[in-house]
């Protein structure tokens, strides 16, 4: 696939993620995906904007909400669907499910279902990169809620103290499950991170993959130059419920207004020509991946005790 400009390429990547998750929504009621899913619909622009400036060998660590980053970093569609189906051909051989996607072959290192727990892992990978002079930039992606965990403070401090090549990327969707940010945090995320001596930037237009791409591109360049860690907070908006495939603007914890405002800016909803142009290829890829997952074998009993210690 060739693209006329970066906007189109990033659009394609973002659309690919959205369609993949929409396919998950379609399949889910059949119970063939027996795995709790945390969808990124509405948040895809961040994943593609962040991953585009990265090299394959730049390690990225994610959370349970990682379909978007897995795909944006270059993880294979087949690997993802097979993993969601719990098949032996999944990226983790069916042992991981949606919450623990991985694709080390493209630097997508790991994703954890324990909030904030991969943040220090990313800092450690950055320490190794610095020590081994690999030239890697490490990225840790986490939600606004993750910044409340103690380990976040510890990780910012260590990264800043040793000027490690790590990008802290906060996807701020204003919610942790159903709890509003203002009910959880007394600090401003960027103001707080800046006190560790880390250069921080805020991106309010989290729907704008080109803007995210540019911001991250500059940050990654600075980090690779040896300027130490950087911090970027991207505002974003989660369209679906926290976990699962439904919508939940009717249950009372959040109003519809901001959803509509966000959607009015969402390129994937506002550029039908590009959607039309890209959908067929994307549909083929997803069809193929689902077919692959469906026809793949289950992991055998010998896998139960394999790879424990």
């Amino acid at each position, binding site marked *: 696939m060739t693209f006329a400009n970066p906007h189109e390429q990033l659009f394609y990547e973002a659309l690919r993620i959205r369609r993949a998750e929409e396919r998950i929504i379609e399949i889910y009621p059949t*119970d063939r995906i*027996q*795995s*709790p899913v945390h969808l990124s619909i509405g948040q895809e622009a961040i994943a593609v904007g962040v991953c585009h400036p990265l090299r394959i060998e730049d390690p990225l660590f994610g959370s349970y909400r990682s379909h978007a980053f897995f795909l944006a970093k270059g993880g294979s569609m087949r690997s993802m669907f097979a993993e969601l189906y*719990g*098949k*032996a051909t*999944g990226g983790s051989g*069916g*042992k*991981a*499910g*949606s*919450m*623990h996607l991985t694709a080390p072959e493209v630097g997508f290192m790991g994703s*954890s*279902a*324990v*909030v*904030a727990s991969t943040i220090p892992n990313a800092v450690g990978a950055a320490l190794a990169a610095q020590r081994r002079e690999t030239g890697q930039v490490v990225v840790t992606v986490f939600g606004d*809620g*993750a910044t*409340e*965990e*103690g380990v976040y403070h510890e990780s910012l401090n260590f990264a800043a103290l040793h000027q490690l090549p790590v990008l802290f990327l906060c996807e701020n969707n204003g919610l*942790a*499950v*159903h*709890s509003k940010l203002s*009910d*959880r*945090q007394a600090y401003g995320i960027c103001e707080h991170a800046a006190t560790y001596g880390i250069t921080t930037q805020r991106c309010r237009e989290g729907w704008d993959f080109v803007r995210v791409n540019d911001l991250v591109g500059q940050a990654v360049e600075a980090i690779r130059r040896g300027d130490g860690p950087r911090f970027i907070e991207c505002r974003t908006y989660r369209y679906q*419920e*926290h*976990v*699962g495939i439904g919508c939940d603007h009717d*249950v*009372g*914890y959040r109003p519809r207004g901001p959803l509509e405002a966000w959607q009015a800016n969402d390129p994937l909803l506002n550029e039908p020509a590009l959607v039309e142009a890209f959908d067929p290829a994307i549909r083929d890829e997803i069809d193929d991946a689902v077919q692959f997952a469906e026809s793949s074998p*289950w*992991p*055998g*009993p010998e*896998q*139960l*005790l394999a790879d*424990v210690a």
Partner: protein
Amino acid sequence: MGVAYKIEEDQAQTTTYREALFRCMRGALADHPETFILGQGVDDHKGTFGSTVGLAEEFGAGRVMDSPLAEESMTGIGIGAALNGLYPIQTHIRADFALLAMNQIVNMAAKYKYMFGGRFEVPMLIRMVIGRSWGQGAQHSQSLQSLFAHVPGLTVIMPATSDSILETYPWIIENHRGPVISLEHRLLYDIAFRGDDARPENSPLSSRLLRRGKDVTIVATSIMVLEAKRAAEHLAETAGIEAEVIDLHCVSHPDRQMILDSVARTGRLIVADTSWQAYGVAAEISRIVCEHDPSILRAPIATLGMAPAPCPTAKTLEDLYYPTLRSLADTAARMVVGEEDHGVTLPEEASMADVYKRFKGPF
């Protein structure tokens, strides 16, 4: 003050585990002004799987407090609040997350009283939910009772039925002046109980003899208690094998005498637990028997628990990972008949497997 909630007198009526939890939470807030609930999402519309739903509206945000994502400090805050006159009830929607609070639980809550020569008390209840099934995976499925039960100063319970909850929670909140950790099983939440189990005679912080039988003793915890009862009924009906079933319940303070008496009678012991076996419940029960008199065992003991690995998500592996009604009945039959080829018809997985299957999250 009397016990806040009694088991329904009407035996026909059933109560789900979730309803029992809800009644205890509501009762605690209504009857004890010093109580408060602190946990992630306790005030949202899902209300900790329904166990706290609507309580923030009824009792106010000060009594039912949403918490930031900060397990270590939340536990420490609970301890501090307990030291200054409140009774905290804390929730972890997965026991796995309590690993972030181990320092406050083990170094502080468990020790505050002893370390200061009895000058303080830390009355509090920490609820932790054990996840299972449907792709929970390695970090949403751990059943960490042994880690806590190893530590003096902690009281650890695993309510297996609605009754257990209704008997124990109000009693603890009213009478127990130390930290209690309760491991609730997510798959029990939807199960309705008739409430006709024997009730413990004294403190509910002990074990329960649920079924009499002469052939084999099954000591079980949490959801394995249900499997044990089903297995026992199946074995009695189809093969005349009578299993005695003990719900260990208070895993930190099991009723040693009850276990020893039972094994002395049956000569055979199966331990069915929800966690890994090394350094787990089966190990502890083995110690109790071995220190007392191993000769009461007429056969090697059999133990069931999770496979010695993190929990995989693929259904095919998950099915092998957990012990089942069928594997439990099979184990008991083999033990009593004394042969691998015991000839006893094994139960179809139907009943509980259905429960597990119906479970589709949310968390």
